[in-house]
C-alpha cells in the first residue's frame, strides 16, 4: 500500500499522512453510542446473559458427563472451570465482531451516520477511534460481569484472573480491528455470511469445548493458527493460574492481528467515505 501518484490536490491531502485526519473529538462518537444504547438497555442486559447461559448449561449439564478435563498445560479441572475462560474469550470476540461488522455496516450503508458525522469537524480517525473505544467499553463491561459470575461459580482458580479482564478487552480490540477492516470490503448483507463462516467454526473448534489434544495432530496446527485459539489459551492460562512465558506468544499474535486491522481499516474507511 504505497501512496498512489495522484493529482496534486490529493497528494497534498491525507496520502502523505500515516493516519487519517481527526479533530480529537472521538469521545463524542462514544457519547452518541451511549445515548443510543440508553434506549436499548434490554439488549445490554441480554447480551451479558448469553455467556452466562452457556456457562451454566455446560458447567452443570456437560459437567455431569465430563467430571474432569486435563488442560493442554496439564492441570486437571472441572468442566465448568475448563469452559469458563473459553466462553469469556469467545464472548469478547462475538461482541467485538458484532459491533465492528453488522453494526458498522448498518451505520455506514443504511443509516448513513458516518456521512452525517463527516459533515461536521469530525474526521475518519475520530469515527474509527470512537467506535472501537465504545466497543471495548461495552465489551469490558460484559467481561467484568461474566468474570464476577465465574468467580461466584467457583471456577476462577488464581489471582492472575485479575488480568483476565484486560485480556478480554485486548481480545475484543484485536477482533474489532480486523472486523472493521473486513466490513470495509462488504458490499451487501449477503457478504456477512463470510463473517459467520469465520466466527462459528472458531467458536466451536478453538479449544472452546474440548482441549487441543482431542484433535489429530494436523488439525492441531490448523486450530493453533486461528485467532480465537490464542484468545482462549490466554484466558485459560490466566483464570486457571497456568501462566508462563509462552503466554506472550498469544499476546503477540493478537497484537499483530489488531495492528493489521487498525492500519487496514483506517485506510479503507478514508478511501470509502471521503470520495
Amino acid at each position, binding site marked *: 500500500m504505497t501512496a498512489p501518484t495522484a493529482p496534486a*490536490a490529493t497528494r497534498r491531502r491525507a496520502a502523505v499522512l500515516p493516519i487519517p485526519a481527526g479533530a480529537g473529538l472521538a469521545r463524542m462518537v462514544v457519547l452518541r453510542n451511549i445515548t443510543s444504547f440508553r434506549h436499548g438497555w434490554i439488549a445490554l442486559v441480554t447480551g451479558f446473559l448469553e455467556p452466562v447461559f452457556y456457562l451454566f448449561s455446560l458447567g452443570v449439564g456437560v459437567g455431569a458427563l465430563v467430571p474432569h478435563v486435563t488442560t493442554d498445560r496439564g492441570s486437571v479441572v472441572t468442566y465448568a472451570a475448563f469452559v469458563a475462560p473459553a466462553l469469556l474469550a469467545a464472548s469478547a470476540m462475538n461482541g467485538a465482531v458484532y459491533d465492528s461488522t453488522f453494526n458498522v455496516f448498518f451505520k455506514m450503508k443504511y*443509516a448513513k451516520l458516518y456521512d*452525517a458525522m463527516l459533515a461536521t469537524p469530525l474526521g475518519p480517525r475520530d469515527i474509527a477511534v470512537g467506535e472501537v473505544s465504545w466497543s471495548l467499553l461495552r465489551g469490558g463491561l460484559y467481561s467484568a460481569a461474566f468474570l464476577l459470575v465465574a468467580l461466584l461459580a467457583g471456577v476462577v482458580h488464581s489471582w492472575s484472573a485479575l488480568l483476565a479482564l484486560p485480556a478480554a478487552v485486548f481480545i475484543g480490540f484485536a477482533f474489532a480491528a480486523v472486523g472493521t477492516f473486513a466490513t470495509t470490503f462488504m458490499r451487501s448483507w449477503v457478504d456477512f455470511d463470510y463473517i459467520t463462516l469465520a466466527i462459528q467454526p472458531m467458536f466451536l473448534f478453538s479449544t472452546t469445548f474440548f482441549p487441543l489434544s482431542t484433535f489429530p495432530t494436523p488439525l492441531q496446527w490448523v486450530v493453533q493458527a486461528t485467532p480465537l485459539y490464542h484468545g482462549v489459551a490466554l484466558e485459560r492460562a490466566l483464570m486457571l493460574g497456568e501462566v508462563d512465558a509462552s503466554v506472550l506468544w498469544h499476546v503477540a499474535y493478537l497484537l499483530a492481528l489488531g495492528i493489521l486491522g487498525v492500519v487496514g481499516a483506517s485506510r479503507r474507511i478514508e478511501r470509502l467515505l471521503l470520495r
Partner: protein
Amino acid sequence: MTDPRQAVPRQPVADDVLVRARGLVKTFGEFRAVDGIDVTVHRGEAFGFLGPNGAGKSSTMRMVGAVSPVSGGELRIFGLDPATDGPAIRARLGVVPQADHLDEELTVEENLWIYGRYFGLSGRQVRERARELLDFAQLTERARHKVDSLSGGMKRRLTIARSLINSPEVLLLDEPTTGLDPQARHILWDRLFRLKRQGVTLVLTTHYMDEAEQLCDRLVVMDHGRIVAEGSPRNLISAHSTREVLELRFDLDDHRDRLDDVDGVGERVEVLPDRLLVYVDDGDAAMSAIAGRGIRPLSSLVRRSTLEDVFLHLTGRSLID
C-alpha cells in the same frame, strides 16, 4: 487548526467571498462529474445550482462541504483550502444532505444535542441551542419522540435545524424539498427565507425551477458537469427566453407532426412528448394567429417563461425527465 485567517473579524461587505472555485473538477475514474466550473458565492446571498439529475450539482456540493477531495482546479471556502483545513471549514458550515441521514436510534432532541457535540460544543450549549432550533423547526412538541415517527417534512425540518446547531455562516442544501408535498415545501421555503434574512448565506441545489426562482438571488445552470448559464433568475429568463410561452396540445402521438402548423408564429418552438411550446412575446396574439390559420389544438395555454424554458433552450432537454 488555529488558522490566522480565522481570527480576522468578519465584516458584512458585499464582495466578501465565501466560496470561490476556479476550474473545479471532480472525476470518478474516467467519469468527469464536475468538469471545470467557476463559482463565486458572496456573503449573505442565496446561490443556486440548477440542473437535472447527474449534472454534477451534488458532487460540487460535497466538495464545497469539504468531504470530497477536489480532483482538479482550485477551491477556497472562507479563504481556506478544504484539502488542509477540512475540519476548520466544516466547523463553519451547515449541511443539509439530499437524504436526511438522521440518527434513527435517537430522539428528536438527542439528534440535535449529539450533532452539536460533534462540533465540540458543550452539553449546556447544545441544550440551549437545541431549544431555539426546535422552536424554529416547529418541532418542540416532538422533542422526545423517536425520529422514526416523524413525517417527511418534519424530518427535513429537523435536518435543517440540526445543520444550524453550530450557527453556520453558510448553509449547504442539496435538493432541500425533493420528495416533499406542496405544503411541506412552502413551510420549508418560509424557514429558509427567515434564515436568509438573518444573514445566513444559502447555497442550494435543485432541479425545481420554481424553487430556484423563489429562493435564489443568483444561480448557475449546470448540465453534464459544466455551467451553461449564470445570473439572477430574472436575467436568465430575459436573456435566454421570450416573455411568454404558448403551450399547445394536439390529439396525436407525435407532436412533431404539427411543427409546420406553427411555423413562423414565435421566435422558437420546442417539441415535448405531449405538447408544443411556442416562444413569443405576446401569447394571446400568437394564439389568435394560430386560430386564424384554422388550427384547432386540443388545448392551449399562455404562460410566463420560467427557468424550465431557459434550461430547455440551453440544453434541449427538460429538467425532470
